């Protein structure tokens, strides 16, 4: 993975000292809250319902075991012994004190981490496919490009006061696991049809939140070495023309929607033609320097099949199930990427205790070359596990409650912190996730239902990606009560789609029963081997809506 050079190191250290000074000036009254708020937000420090919250950047979701140990130390020393992995591949601590924040940033800097680009109207921490570099369906590792974007965008003077926040996601694979079509800019690595040169399909104007849009392609093929200059052209058009009069209409998706994708493309291309491209695009030597940090490790030459694994799977059905559900095809023979679920039944999605972090860091060293990944689905990935090591890994994970076999299934729920923590939330998310997971806990039943993305947000800002869940749940306030609106047919893959609302809002305790009805229609209507979302697309929303309506009427009759 990338290692800081002297410039990165100095930049991050200076930011820590600047923030220490800003906090001191806030505490001695030299800065008012209105003056201080944007400064603390630039360092990832929010004020939430119960306390401050610190959001730490994990660029493109890549972490080392050493960094995870440091996060465990911070959790114990300055927080309440746990952290929360987010849908932007970051981690949040829910209880830090303002007085401690500079020291926490110092501890982060010790392991090449920071909280820059986790808040504010800047280009945010860039996200990527969590299987980057190891996926069998990948053209190339997107992380060198992500790192380049990180360096280009960090404290970029022209793009530090954008109309609104700006999120970029990159995938190098055929299958989109980074939800690139729901980002301000999505980059999908492709090869030129004629020359087979590497480049990017450039997608702009996607996003969730109160006005969800699937992004639109503005360039089918952008040569790889032109990327930064082209991004700069997009940012300039947005910076100049994005609305600043209304924060709800300030994202680039609104601009693209209002002027149309053709007009937006023309503006970008005109700007691009004007730019001094050579002064923006990096020196090839610098590109190579960065890429070298992401060179594949020296994989052992292993047989594609492991007899040890096959034998263990035969002897232990629970283990076999975990391998089949949580394993992911690796490009190197004899290796596998493993998703470790942070969605134990009844647990808080994405939460991890400091004990689990330390244990997991040790397992990362022992089984996966010291590197791990965070997924936007709020799980962790061990990218480089030998197949023959899977059984001892599974046994070790089980000791700390980390061997749940549910990745991609109905209990692998994405959920934002919701009103249990977040001051923006309008309703709780976590208890709904817990109730649904508990309802569908039976592993046989989960497997029978098969792949199903269920996403929950506690407000319209959609941190829980509810719009692109196959089933989405949005928590709102209705007449002084929490109320949950259910959407169907969303899709976060390369076939991205925004789900449709299927009926009136429900109280929280009625939600698991509603999910049961939707699943029942699927089980009744599915064809052999057809996953949930495919059935929804084939038969349409009507049967699901009818079952939902029937359920709602039953609730009313029951109440009356």
């Amino acid at each position, binding site marked *: 993975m990338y290692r800081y050079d002297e410039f990165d190191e100095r930049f991050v250290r200076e930011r820590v000292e600047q923030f220490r000074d800003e906090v001191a000036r*806030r*505490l001695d009254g030299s800065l008012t809250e209105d003056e201080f708020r944007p400064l603390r937000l630039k360092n990832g420090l929010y004020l939430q319902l119960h306390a401050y919250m610190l959001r730490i950047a994990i660029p493109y979701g890549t972490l080392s075991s050493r960094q995870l140990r440091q996060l465990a130390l911070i959790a114990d020393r300055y927080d309440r012994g746990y952290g929360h992995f987010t849908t932007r591949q970051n981690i949040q601590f829910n209880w830090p004190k303002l007085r401690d924040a500079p020291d926490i940033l110092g501890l982060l800097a010790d392991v090449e981490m920071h909280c820059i680009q986790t808040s504010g109207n800047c280009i945010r921490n860039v996200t990527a496919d969590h299987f980057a570099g190891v996926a069998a369906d990948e053209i190339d590792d997107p992380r060198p490009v992500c790192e380049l974007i990180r360096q280009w965008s960090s404290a970029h003077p022209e793009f530090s006061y954008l109309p609104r926040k700006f999120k970029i996601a990159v995938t190098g694979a055929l299958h989109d696991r980074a939800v690139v079509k729901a980002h301000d800019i999505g980059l999908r690595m492709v090869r030129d049809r004629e020359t087979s040169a590497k480049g990017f399909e450039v997608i702009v104007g996607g996003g969730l939140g109160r006005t969800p849009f699937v992004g639109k392609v503005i360039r089918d093929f952008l040569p790889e070495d032109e990327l930064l200059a082209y991004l700069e052209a997009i940012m300039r058009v947005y910076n100049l023309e994005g609305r600043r009069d209304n924060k709800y209409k300030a994202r680039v998706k609104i601009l693209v929607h209002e002027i149309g994708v053709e007009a937006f493309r023309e503006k970008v291309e005109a700007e691009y033609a004007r730019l001094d491209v050579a002064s923006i695009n990096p020196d090839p030597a610098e590109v190579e320097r960065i890429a070298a940090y992401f060179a594949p490790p020296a994989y052992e030459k292993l047989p594609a099949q492991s007899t040890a694994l096959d034998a263990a799977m035969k002897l232990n059905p629970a283990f076999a199930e975990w391998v089949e559900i949580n394993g992911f095809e690796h490009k190197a023979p004899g290796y596998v990427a493993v998703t470790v679920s942070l969605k134990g039944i009844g647990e808080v999605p994405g939460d991890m205790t400091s004990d689990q972090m330390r244990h997991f860091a040790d397992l990362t060293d022992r089984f996966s070359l010291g590197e791990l990944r965070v997924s936007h689905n709020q799980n962790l990935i061990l990218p480089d596990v030998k197949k023959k090591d899977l059984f001892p890994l599974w046994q070790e994970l089980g000791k700390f409650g980390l061997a749940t076999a549910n990745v991609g299934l109905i209990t692998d729920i994405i959920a934002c912190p919701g009103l249990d923590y977040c001051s923006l939330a309008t309703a709780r998310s976590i208890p709904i996730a817990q109730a649904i997971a508990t309802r569908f806990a039976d592993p046989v039943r989960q497997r029978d239902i098969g792949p199903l993305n269920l996403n929950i947000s506690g407000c319209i800002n959609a941190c829980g990606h509810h719009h692109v869940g196959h089933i989405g749940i949005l928590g709102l306030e209705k007449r002084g009560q929490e109320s949950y609106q259910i959407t169907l047919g969303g899709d976060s893959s390369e076939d991205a789609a925004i789900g449709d609302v299927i009926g009136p809002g429900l109280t929280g305790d009625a939600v698991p029963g509603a999910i049961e009805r939707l699943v029942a229609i699927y089980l009744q209507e599915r064809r052999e081997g057809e996953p949930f979302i495919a059935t929804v697309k084939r038969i349409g929303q009507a049967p699901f809506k009818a079952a939902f309506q029937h359920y709602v009427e039953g609730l009313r009759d029951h109440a009356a």
Partner: protein
Amino acid sequence: MSAAKRPPLPVILLANDLLDGEVVFRSDKGWSRDPGEALIAFDDEAAVALEQAGQRAYANNEVVEVALVDVSLTGDGKPVPNHFRERFKVNGPTVRLDLGKQAVYGRR
């Protein structure tokens, strides 16, 4: 805050402590971390006094996010916010009963 914008009576005043972010309540001894010690304003005059105390404390950099919150009283006369958002705020996360006020002062 004009009277029209004030929540209905009775009200308490809550805020977050500037230094550590913890939820605090205006009490007769200044700011208290114990929701049970919150001063309850039953009339406009008392509500205005609370509001002004909040404004002063904000200006003095003691607290942030100052807000009057309408409450109902439990059998023992303790205030409980009427809105679920503030109820969570004075208790703590409903999914972690070991954290927040509820862990120290009990749930209300």
